[in-house]
């Protein structure tokens, strides 16, 4: 088990390289097999993972540039563990659901590379390494959107790439500055997160660094008003691209917030808490309304993703164990649910070659099983209890309630508006008589699609009923992080604030 993390990171890369040798006809099977093996390894990681240990486990360290403190440093804790599993799981599911024949080889190899970068982002403990994977994840995605997307794919791909790239260059400056400060303070160069977490920064420095990191994450999430790349990307991307984009890539932003902003800059986090929360709430409500106005089924889900990401951000900035644990869980559940919804939209697109809701109507008559699965996913997206969507949303909102109850109330309208646009979508597409003859006699979900959807549906229900195995390790690591934040914050009122939002009673 010593090098399991490296194995997880580099197995898809190596498999991708060898994928060039595989025959075109069998490349899909190859992709699924590789993804399955990768997923199995991550499951093994989970089994070997000690849920009671809050720190990083399976740490590997190898110096790359000693004079500059850059090293190959990976490790996993409760916060990242499940995001890694989510990445490998969703990649596997997306590959099972894949039915693109055109240049399938390039596509599948790109997906495998993408998998490597996603896993790399979550496992990196060296910030330069993190940045490396972070940036490189754009490349396969650019290719996937741009080469297999719909009409305006190139515009969408470039927009996605440039927007997110531009956002992250400032983070690079922030990283370098942070490294400089670390060097100035300790006399050693280090870009390792555990090292950085020990550094107590003066407030003004925290502000600037917070800003530099936050912008990159905010664009990735994407937060209002930096979100406009996402609808384009989703609108044009092929199904597999949307699935991975929504399920995993967006989570990198929120993961970054948890991993960097909170423990590194606790005072700045608390200082900017309210403004960010306001933006998050605006984002929840605004995008939910925009989602309601959409005509295209996929766009509804794209905007709904943004709306849900708002709740995740709110949970993170609750700075209490309930909120942060909840939002990490919500990241996972949203990954499963939105990934599933995008796959479902892709299936209907394969049949009808349109995503406009006005083209549908009465699909429940021609495709009842499909409608049922769609309904389950939709209910999970709406956050119905006993589905996976509820737990995270409940905890996130509950966490933020301690910070500010009025803002939670506003954010909570997201769950109402979520029901509004989702049910409207469902009604317009699935209910009613079949008005469009093309919808008559559509084939119901087939074996391949079912094979992709059943794991998702099963997880939606199982994790909705029994989220404990996931919540517990997350909670352990999060609690440790909060203690760290409390210790590190410079201002006494911030120390008190952290204690306050983490304790029952007190305050309002």
């Amino acid at each position, binding site marked *: 088990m010593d090098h399991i993390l490296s194995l997880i990171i580099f197995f898809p890369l190596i498999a991708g390289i060898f994928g060039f040798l595989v025959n075109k006809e069998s490349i899909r099977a190859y992709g699924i097999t590789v993804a399955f093996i990768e997923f199995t390894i991550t499951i093994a990681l989970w089994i070997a993972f000690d849920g009671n240990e809050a720190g990083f486990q399976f740490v590997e360290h190898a110096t790359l540039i000693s004079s500059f403190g850059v090293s190959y440093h990976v490790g996993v804790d409760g916060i990242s563990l499940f995001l890694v599993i989510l990445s490998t799981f969703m990649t596997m599911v997306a590959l099972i659901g894949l039915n693109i024949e055109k240049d399938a080889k390039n596509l599948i190899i790109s997906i495998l590379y993408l998998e490597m970068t996603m896993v790399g982002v979550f496992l990196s403990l060296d910030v330069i390494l993190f940045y490396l994977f972070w940036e490189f994840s754009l490349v396969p995605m650019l290719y996937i959107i741009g080469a297999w997307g719909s009409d305006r794919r190139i515009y969408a791909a470039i*927009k996605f790439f*440039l927007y997110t790239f531009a956002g992250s260059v400032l983070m690079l400056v922030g990283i370098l500055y942070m490294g400089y400060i670390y060097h100035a303070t300790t006399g050693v160069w280090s870009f390792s997160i555990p090292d950085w977490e020990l550094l107590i920064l003066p407030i003004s420095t925290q502000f600037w660094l917070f800003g530099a990191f936050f912008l990159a994450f905010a664009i990735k999430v994407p937060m*209002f*008003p930096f*979100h*406009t*790349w996402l609808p384009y990307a989703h609108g044009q991307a092929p199904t597999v691209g949307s699935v991975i984009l929504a399920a995993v890539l967006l989570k990198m932003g929120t993961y970054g917030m948890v991993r960097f902003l909170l423990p590194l800059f606790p005072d700045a986090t608390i200082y900017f808490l309210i403004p960010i929360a306001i933006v998050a709430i605006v984002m929840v409500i*605004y995008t939910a*309304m*925009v989602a309601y*106005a*959409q005509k295209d089924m996929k766009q509804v889900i794209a905007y709904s993703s943004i709306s849900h990401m708002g709740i995740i951000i709110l949970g993170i900035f609750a700075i209490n*164990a*309930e909120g942060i*644990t909840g939002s990490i*869980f919500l990241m996972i559940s949203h990954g499963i649910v939105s990934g599933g919804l995008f796959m479902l939209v892709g299936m209907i697109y394969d049949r009808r070659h349109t995503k406009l809701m006005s083209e549908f109507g*009465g699909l429940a*008559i021609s495709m*009842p*099983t499909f409608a*049922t699965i769609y309904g389950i996913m939709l*209910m999970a997206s709406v956050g*119905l*209890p*006993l589905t996976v969507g*509820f*737990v995270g949303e*409940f*905890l996130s*909102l*509950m*966490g933020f*309630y301690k910070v500010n*109850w009025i803002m*939670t*109330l506003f954010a*909570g309208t997201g*769950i*109402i508006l979520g*029901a*509004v646009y989702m*049910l409207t979508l469902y*009604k317009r597409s*699935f*209910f*009613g*008589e079949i008005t469009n003859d093309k919808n008559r006699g559509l084939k119901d979900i087939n074996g391949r699609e079912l094979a992709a959807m059943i794991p998702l549906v099963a997880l939606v229900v199982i994790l909705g*009923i*029994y*989220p404990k195995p996931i*919540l*517990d390790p*997350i909670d352990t690591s*999060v*609690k440790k992080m909060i203690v760290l934040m409390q210790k590190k914050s410079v201002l006494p009122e911030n120390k008190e604030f952290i204690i306050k939002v983490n*304790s*029952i*009673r007190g*305050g*309002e």
Partner: protein
Amino acid sequence: METYLYIALFAPIVGSLITALFAQMPKKICVGIFTSTLIFISFISSMILLNYVDEDQIVHVKLMDWISAGNLSIPFGFVVDQVSVIMMVTVTLVSTVVHIYSIGYMDHDESFNRFFSWLSAFVFSMMILVMSDNFVGLFIGWEGVGLCSWGLIGFWYKKHSASWAANEAFIMNRIADLGMLMGLFLIYWNIGSLQYDIVFAQIVNLDINVVTWIGIFLFIGAMGKSAQFPLHTWLADAMEGPTPVSALIHAATMVTAGVYLIVRAGEIYTLIPDVGLFIASLGAFVAVFAASMALVNRDLKRIIAYSTLSQLGYMFVAAGLGAYWIALFHLMTHAFFKSLLFLGAGNVMHAMDDELDIKKMGGLYSAMKPTAILMSIASVALAGIYPLAGFFSKDKILEVAFNNGSYFLWFALFIGAGMTAFYSFRLVMLVFFGEKVHKKLGFNPHEAKPFVIYALTPLALLAIVAGFFEQSFHEFTTQLLVNYEFTLDHSIALILIFATSAVAISGIAFAVYKYKRGGFSEKIEEWGVYKLLINQYYIPKLYKDGIMKPFTSFSKFLWLNIDNMIVDKTVDMIAGAIYGTGEKARKMQSGNLSSMLRWMVAGIIILLALAIFYRPMV
């Protein structure tokens, strides 16, 4: 006893899940029988538990942990105590009847199997709701019944109105659920737990303001589920669903969940009588408000729906004023006679080929005698005539209002009682007696199958006799619930009973008298009051024009004008500006050697000028 608890709880979901596998297959009668049996088993278990609890024992189990994070720990825990067991029995009893009834009612429906799957799932959700030992568990059931209600209202999803009504119900409930969630958060952050026992034990230690807010938030949740004003419109629209659904969900069980919540959280509400008074006032208002709409409506099911709304108002009055056991009692009796009423209406609908306009019926008595009798019993019970069940429970509520000194509330309820009697018998008269309008319209009514009628008899029986259990019910429930002390003089109470009965009887008499003679003239339809009532006080229209339309157009505005035109365009403009600058800067590369040389010389000259004029040298 835990075994019985689990049987009672899980029998319905087993039925539902197994049936779900057959959902897309053609009708299988055994599906109906199978689920009905399981529900019946659940009922039997509930009865055994009732018996057990009656010996002053409480069953409390913890199945497993559900959510735990930070200080929060929520288990799947279930409790069978005096309150929940009453609910369990009521729910499973009515459910059993409805299930059996549905085998006949849904006979010709192509989605017969799907129906039973949903219906059993509903029962399961309802059981979770009433049996949970914590607020979040209650919330699971709360949302679960909402989901099943959505699926069942929109059961005939091909009908636009049905799926619309389903969405309306779900969304309206969501609005209220948000309030409830806020209440849960508030409880958690002040007590650190959401278990009933811990919360109720510690609630007294809290600041009264906090308790008030908790009470308000929880009541907002209750308002949605129990369709209290202003979240009431969904209930009438929910009649789009199949009639058994209306009987089970929108009369007997789900809509009463709000009342159950208030009763359950009685320990909180006793601390905050002001909120209680508000609840009672709103209840009284709804009681009259809904009854008034029932007076003129011509839709068979909607009349009963408004009646339900009105009766829920009654229950809230009792609960708000602290008479929890009375609220619960009315909840139970109402469940019996109201579901009977609905199921009878279902028979009528079947007979009339799903026609709902009561003006098109008339004289059905001859064709369907048993149904007519059953519905009459239910109506009498609803009107509150001695010795039927409604008399005991409803009169008690009026007594409570009077006892509390809230004479205005009492008066409202008093008027409401009269109206109830009138519209109930308006319905009975127009449907079963009088001129046979349906003959002219070419309907050929027929009575339902015998087993359907037999299935209804237990309900009818209970509607008649349930009232006599008042005393034992009182003793039983007040072991857990806060008792309500009557300070009213016995004679005054007697006067009140007579007054109420009088107004009920006169209401019935007026209806019978009037509709024997062909009813009111067409003229009253011109009246402003009539228009106001038939249009439901224009509230649905207000919601449509005042909320939905602006919301839709504002959403469109946000998308097309803000998101596309401002937010996105800004990004594109930045990119465009950079690109445009590139195009302009490109002109510098004219390719002409002369100008290239001039650029160089110009550069030197500018730098020289700077060297002379700009010298930041220290």
